[in-house]
């Protein structure tokens, strides 16, 4: 995980309102997160985009995407917790992605940590640098996001590596592009995440 060095910045920039938010948001986050990703319980969120959706979104590369926590991920979470080193709530997950025109089913292990704005941010430990955001979307869905808008309204793109080739000649990378910026994945049966 990559906790950002934000402590000096608290002294630099946070107003009283911001400071209050800093201390109150994690509580709200934890309550929401527990419902979405309960400890010791597997979860599966998945979505397959149908032909009509893809026809209406010709620039969308993702045709199927799932976010799963199974025994392997729950075991990893226990290691995080029992290590006593974690300062934030961490989850492990497996992201599976199929892209338009690509027969490969990309599988990437993720580690996700909480943030002040109510989201978790997941990175691929094998090929660090990018991240994908995860936020609850109602009671029975999650929203995965790549990049986001700044306060001035401009969108800043982002990415996550889908394999371990990293700096290889043709790394598999999911980029936010024009139509791959957010995906809403409903709760799904476990087999939908295979």
């Amino acid at each position, binding site marked *: *995980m990559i906790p950002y060095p934000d402590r000096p*910045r608290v002294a630099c920039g946070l107003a009283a309102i*911001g400071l209050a938010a800093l201390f109150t948001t994690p509580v709200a986050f934890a309550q929401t997160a527990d419902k979405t990703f309960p400890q010791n319980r597997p979860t599966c969120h998945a979505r397959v985009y149908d032909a009509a959706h893809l026809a209406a979104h010709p620039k969308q590369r993702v045709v199927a995407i799932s976010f799963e926590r199974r025994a392997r991920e729950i075991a990893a979470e226990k290691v995080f917790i029992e290590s006593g080193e974690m300062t934030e709530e961490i989850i492990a997950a497996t992201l599976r992605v199929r892209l338009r025109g690509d027969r490969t089913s990309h599988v990437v292990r993720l580690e996700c940590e909480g943030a002040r704005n109510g989201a978790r941010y997941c990175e691929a430990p*094998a090929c660090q*640098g990018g991240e994908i955001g995860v936020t609850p979307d109602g009671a029975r869905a999650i929203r995965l996001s790549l990049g986001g808008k700044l306060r001035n309204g401009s969108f*800043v793109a982002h990415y996550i*590596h889908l394999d371990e080739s990293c700096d290889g000649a043709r790394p598999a990378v999911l980029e936010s592009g024009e139509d791959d910026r957010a995906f809403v994945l409903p709760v799904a049966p476990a087999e939908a995440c295979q």
Partner: protein
Amino acid sequence: MNGAILRALAATLALAATSARAETPPDLRTLFSADTPACFANVFDAAHMKTHPDQTVTAVRLVRGYPQLRMEQESAGPDAPKDAPPDQACGVMAQLIVTFRDSGGKDSPKRFAAAVNCTAEAGASKMRCGIDCDGGGFFVEREVGGTLRMTLQDGNNLRIAGGCTNRRAYRGLGTEPGDRSFSLAATAMTDCR
């Protein structure tokens, strides 16, 4: 006589100008503009690596992208003006991404990343970037031609990846002589992916 006075005056002014430059902190805005992603990178090819056996790093990237810009805004608070330039004292957030010649393989990361905070102190000729949790620090400065020179602090190595909480993926940078200073070119954000 007048010529000598003028030459002395010119020399004095030149000295004063040099002194003023030395005491002026580097403007972070020349490296990192408000709300603008930036990528500085160097990916070393096989020929370079062959002629630099004391270098284990095959790629270095210093990037300020979406997560860093978002977190800067979160830290600045809701009342901060839009498009405000980076605060010289507070510095800017960035990410250092390093790939090693020998990394990768089973359960071993191929590429390592560390979050850094870069600040310019009064009187400094360089910016210092520090990795949280005492992961070490390095200096950055502009080179002639616009590239950015990254140099590890004397006597110190960097600890990258893993942050404060995950000891499994730590990696030291700087133990080899060829891994202590890198020239990074400003390039497209896609080169920092």
